[in-house]
C-alpha cells in the first residue's frame, strides 16, 4: 500500500503511460518539427520522478483533465525501462505513476 493507503501495482512493460502536454496555443511547447520540448519532461525542484497516468487505471477523459488546453501523449512502459529508468507506481489523488 502507498502512504495514502492506495494499492501499489506492478508496472508491466506493455502498459501504456499517459502524459498531458499543453496544446493551446499549439506552438507553446510543441516545436516546429512536431515534437514536444524537453521542458515538458523536466522535474520540478523536489520531484523524484515524472508524473504520468497508467492507461488501464484511468480513462482518457479523466487523464486529460482539460481537452481545451491539453493533448494526451502515450508511451509504452518498456520504452522507459529501455532507457534504464524505473517505472514506479506511486499513486496520488490525481497522479498515478512516477518514472
Amino acid at each position, binding site marked *: 500500500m502507498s502512504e495514502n493507503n492506495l494499492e501499489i501495482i506492478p508496472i508491466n512493460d506493455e502498459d501504456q503511460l499517459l502524459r498531458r502536454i*499543453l496544446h493551446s496555443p499549439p506552438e507553446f511547447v510543441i*516545436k516546429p518539427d512536431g515534437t514536444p*520540448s524537453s521542458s515538458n519532461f523536466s522535474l*520540478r525542484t523536489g520531484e523524484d520522478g515524472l508524473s504520468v497516468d497508467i492507461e488501464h487505471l484511468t480513462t482518457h477523459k479523466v487523464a486529460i483533465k482539460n481537452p481545451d488546453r491539453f493533448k494526451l501523449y502515450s508511451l509504452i512502459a518498456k520504452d522507459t525501462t529501455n532507457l534504464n529508468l524505473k517505472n514506479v507506481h506511486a499513486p496520488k489523488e490525481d497522479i498515478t505513476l512516477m518514472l
Partner: protein
Amino acid sequence: MLALIKRPEFTSYDSTSIPKLFESLISSRDINESSTIFFNNITFSQVISQFLQKLDRIEKLEENWDGYNAASASKEAIQNARNFIITHNHLALPFYFITAGVNGEVMLEFNQDSKAAELYFNGDGSTELILFKNDTVFLEGELEDNFQDLIDFFNE
C-alpha cells in the same frame, strides 16, 4: 571571428511590447533614462519578433500552466532571456524555439542540422548551456563561461 552577420527579412516588433523592450535596452545597454530613443528604427527578423512576442505570453503564464504544478515564469528569467535575444539577435545563431520550464526558467533552443543547443535562464539568475551533436551532449556549462563556444559551435 565572433560570428557571421545574418541578413534576414526584417519585421517590426509588436508595438504593445515596446515598454518592455525599452526597459531591456536601458538595462542591457546602459542607456540613460533621459535619452530619446526612436523605436521606429528597431526592427527584428521575423523569428526574433516571434520569440519576443512569445516571451510576452510566457510572462503571463500562471502557476500550474502545464497541469503538473509548474511554476509561473520568473521575472528575472524573462528579463535575462529578453536581454539575450535583443542583444544577440544579429549573431548567426540558429534561433529555433523558446518555451517556459517547470521551475520558472525560460529555455531557448538553437538547432541546425545535427547540432542543437539548449540555453536555460533560471529563476535565480543563473544560466545553463547544453550543446548537442547528433543528440549526444557535447558541452555543458554556464553561458557566461561558454558563450564563445556557443557561437563557434554553429559557425565552425
